[in-house]
Each structure stands twice: as structure tokens, then as C-alpha cells.
């Protein structure tokens, strides 16, 4: 008789987790795009005259 509530509860759990994984995947894709843009900037800078001088500190 209460199968609807049971079904809804388990569906919500899997849908929410799926949406969160999707959100993580999209964040990762956005970061990869940013990395590509950064690589292009770096290439342009080294072509102009040597590697960047400032050291990147470990974070």
C-alpha cells in the first residue's frame, strides 16, 4: 500500500546522487577548458621570449 513512498525515496536518492556526479563531471570539463586556455597563454608568452621567470609556489 505504501509502495509509492518507498519507490519515491529510493528514486530520489539515486537521482540526487546522479545529479551530483553530473555536476562534478561538468566542473571537471570546465577546468579542462580553463587549462587549455592557460596553456595557450603560456605558449604565447614563451614564444615571445623565454620561459616565465616567476616561480609558482606550491599550494
Amino acid at each position, binding site marked *: 500500500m505504501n509502495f509509492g513512498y518507498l519507490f519515491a525515496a*529510493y528514486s530520489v536518492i539515486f537521482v540526487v546522487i546522479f545529479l551530483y556526479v553530473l555536476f*562534478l563531471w561538468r566542473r571537471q570539463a570546465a577546468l579542462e577548458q580553463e587549462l587549455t586556455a592557460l596553456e595557450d597563454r603560456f605558449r604565447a608568452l614563451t614564444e615571445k621570449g623565454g620561459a616565465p621567470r616567476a616561480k609558482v609556489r606550491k599550494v
Partner: protein
Amino acid sequence: MKRALTTGLGASGSALLLAALGMVFLYVPTEATQGIVQRIFYFHVPCAWIAFVSFALVAICGIFYLWLDQQVWDDLGYAAAEVGMVFCTLVLITGSLWAKPIWGAWWTWDSRLTTTLILWLLYGGYLMLRAMSEDTAQVARYAAVVGIVAALDVPVIVVSVRLWRTIHPAVLVTRQGGHGLEDPRMVATLLVSIAAFTLFAAWLLMLRFATLRTRTRLNELARHLALNELSRRGEE
């Protein structure tokens, strides 16, 4: 090594989650008084467990961040807060879906429900603070303090069923001591579910933590690149 660990956690968590689902619907007996809807409990309790552990981790990371001032602690705390928030949301939703047929209401201002809602609101505030501000050390320090203060609600939730008059079932540790699960199959199903959720949540935490670490490193690289570009332009 890290990638193998992440993949292993994801694969084992998913496999165990499927096993737990099979046990919930095919193995465990139906509870006599509550009927089929009691089966929500086998995923509701592990969600609460993950939320509490995640928020405790936020507090621990907050303490280490304030103490050592290392970005890695802030990133780990942020990742744990996000994972905890997902599971705390699931606790409230699945709890409501159980309460409607059992209590006849989606929500009551019971001590355990209210303290859990307060926890959800506190970490909602934490995540809003992170989302709406710049990634600065000052915001990270504020967030660390909020994370530590908010986690004080976790032990209050755990003992709320013993401290106040409540209608929420005290299943894991009853008021008389011991646990409220009569059948060993119920205990086994709950333990498998908790193990599955722990592995799965650890996988989510590692994924989010890796994203935040990459974001931190990218920000640092972008900052140095911009400095170099400026100095080159100055020389020209």
C-alpha cells in the same frame, strides 16, 4: 596510484550499493508494524551517517586550516561540506517520505528533525559563503569557523532522541540500550548499506577534492602568468 584508488572506490562503492539494494528488496524481512515503508530506513540511516562524518571532517579540516594555514585543508573541508550537504538533503527528503505514511505528516517540529534541519541550514550558509565570495584566504578562514561551529550540532542530533521527548525512532541505540533491530538480517542489510554508502561517498569526496585542488593550482598558475605578462609588457 591516486587514480587507481579513486576508480577502486567508485567501482567497489557502486557494486556494494547494488548488493545493498538487492538485500533491501529481496533479502530483508518486512517489519511487522511499519510494513514495506520501513525499508526506507536502510538507505536513510547510511545517508545520515555520511552527512555526520562529512561535517565532522569539515570541522577537523577547519581546525587544521586555521592552525597550519595550508590550502589543502580548506579544499578538503569544502569538498566534505558539499558531499555532506548532498547526503543531509537526502536524509531530510527520505525522512519525510517515511514520516508521511507512518506519522501522517511530512514534517513535525520534533527535536531530531529540527536539529537536522538546523544542520542543513548551517552548511547551506557555509556553501553560500563559498559560492558567493572570491577564493581568498579571508573567506576560507570565515568558512573554517562556520564549519567548526556548525559541526557542534552533530552530537546534539545524535543524542537528541535521549535528551528530549521525541517521536523519532531511536533505532540504532534505543533509550533502553541495545539496538532496535530484532532480525539479524536487518542488521546485516544495514551494515552492508553503511559500508556501500561510505565507499561511494569517499569516491565522491575524492572526485570533488581533486577538482578543488586543480582549481587552486590553476588559480595560482593564472596569477603568475598574469604577473609575467605584465612584467614583459613593462620591459617592451
